[in-house]
């Protein structure tokens, strides 16, 4: 990893107006969890609903999309990535540096607020908080890596990422059973299911895949995304056309 790439990336990510969303969305989640606490009186089952449907289903992929595109997609779009590429720095170092910033940011602005929201809306013995911390962290790692790779592969990363986050994970996952097996959210939920043990089924935290399979699938997705991002960055076509 390269500290200069990381600091430029961080400033690029947080220095744009889009960064406001990285604050607004978590604030929205916290506000919703406060309302839920008031309405349900701290019932863990309603916490699970809020987490699965909104936090994991919509907020987390959206945040990771913003971050993944923000750390590299924007620079590729406007061409300023050329200042990093025209240096004797290995391309994999660039990808790792940007991914590290993206992961760190996702942990702070997405995973932490999710855990906070769990505690606000209702938990028991902090078990739910721990379970969703693990799940959100795993999902954030995978989503961010995928969206970073997507940003390198295509200039339409935002559109494709939105379609994936909203259609694939939310709508299709709700109606087509097979789709749920190929879903970062379901894989990550396996961790929560494991941590909650007996209480998982009581509170309605279930995953479509086994814990071991989920970890393997997540690891495979992350590694695949990184390899793809590095390879595509090595042959990134950088011309504005003549």
């Amino acid at each position, binding site marked *: 990893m390269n500290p200069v790439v990381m600091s*430029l990336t961080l400033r*690029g990510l947080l220095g744009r107006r889009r960064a406001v969303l990285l604050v607004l969305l978590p604030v929205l989640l916290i506000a919703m969890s406060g309302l839920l606490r008031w309405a349900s009186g701290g019932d863990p089952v309603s916490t699970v609903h809020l987490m699965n449907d909104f936090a994991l289903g919509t907020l987390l992929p959206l945040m990771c999309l913003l971050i993944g595109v923000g750390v590299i997609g924007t620079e590729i779009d406007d061409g300023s990535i050329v*200042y990093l590429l025209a240096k*004797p720095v*290995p391309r994999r170092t660039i990808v790792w540096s940007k991914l590290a910033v993206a992961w760190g940011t996702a942990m702070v602005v997405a995973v932490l607020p999710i855990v906070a929201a769990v505690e606000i809306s209702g938990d028991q013995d902090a078990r739910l908080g721990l379970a969703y911390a693990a799940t959100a962290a795993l999902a954030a790692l995978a989503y961010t890596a995928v969206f970073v790779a997507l940003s390198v592969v295509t200039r339409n990363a935002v559109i494709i990422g939105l379609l994936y986050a909203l259609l694939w994970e939310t709508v299709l996952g709700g109606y087509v059973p097979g789709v749920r097996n190929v879903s970062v959210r379901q894989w990550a939920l396996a961790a929560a299911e494991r941590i909650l043990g007996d209480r998982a089924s009581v509170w309605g935290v279930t995953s479509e895949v086994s814990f071991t399979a989920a970890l393997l699938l997540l690891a495979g997705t992350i590694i695949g995304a990184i390899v793809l991002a590095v390879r595509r960055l090595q042959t990134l076509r*950088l011309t*504005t056309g003549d």
Partner: protein
Amino acid sequence: MSTLVLDHVSRWYGNVVAANDVTMTIGPGVTGLLGPNGAGKSTLIAMMGGFLAPSAGTVTLDGTAVWRHPGIYRSVGLVPEAEAMYDMVTGWQFVLANARLHRLPDPKAAARAALETVDMMDAKDRDIATYSKGMKQRIKMATALVHDPAVLLLDEPFNGMDPRQRLHLMDLLRFLGEQGRTVLFSSHILEEVEEIAGTIEVLVAGRHAASGDFRRIRRLMTERPHQYTIRSSDDRRLAAAIIADGSADTVDLTSGDLAVQAPDLGVFVHALPRLARDSGIRLLEVSPADESLESVFAYLVAR
């Protein structure tokens, strides 16, 4: 001293050929890559800078292929056409970051030297977002010069500059060329190229149309009609003698002076003094009407 060699380089995007079998050698000094918009200049520079794989042929820098060799950037500085930079940092921070990315032993000294070269020390602590276009261009130059590269590639560096900035950059490029660096810049504006480039490579519709200094390019095109404006003691009689001799196709007296169009430069310039002497006419002035790069260029494009 470094040399970039393009050997039968072609690049196509689907059915569109952006560069067509281009072979050229770019050595120390200032070289201008001249061509109209859409001629493939940016494509060619992208390939020289290792940002685009040639579809066919090779681009080498001192014998090393540039594609997929980020190591070349130790000796190559690149000034991209795109204006985007890291807007949220100051000029100083950005140039310093570039120096650090090059792992220079003393990045601060290098950044200062580069900013001094482009005359941006006064404004170095302002955010890049607040810079004018010309200032951004100079910061771009500073990032390209910060590691003291032997090769400098500039894509349309004069775009958007006011005349004063343009002169400043011209002086800078000339100076860098005199230092023995290999400087290549692209432009579609003829005066810029004519002014500072020792060598000109003309690119038209993806093809390498001509190479050399601009007078040589001019001479290379022997099939091109050459025009002269002549003042003499008796234009009318001289016109008759020239047309009778056959060394010119067209004589024209309508503009007041005698305008002559000759198919062959060598034949005409030898015939003219002889014709004048034989007819007892005194030649007052003989000037080529179209030795400017502009007309050379217009001709190449039309061909």
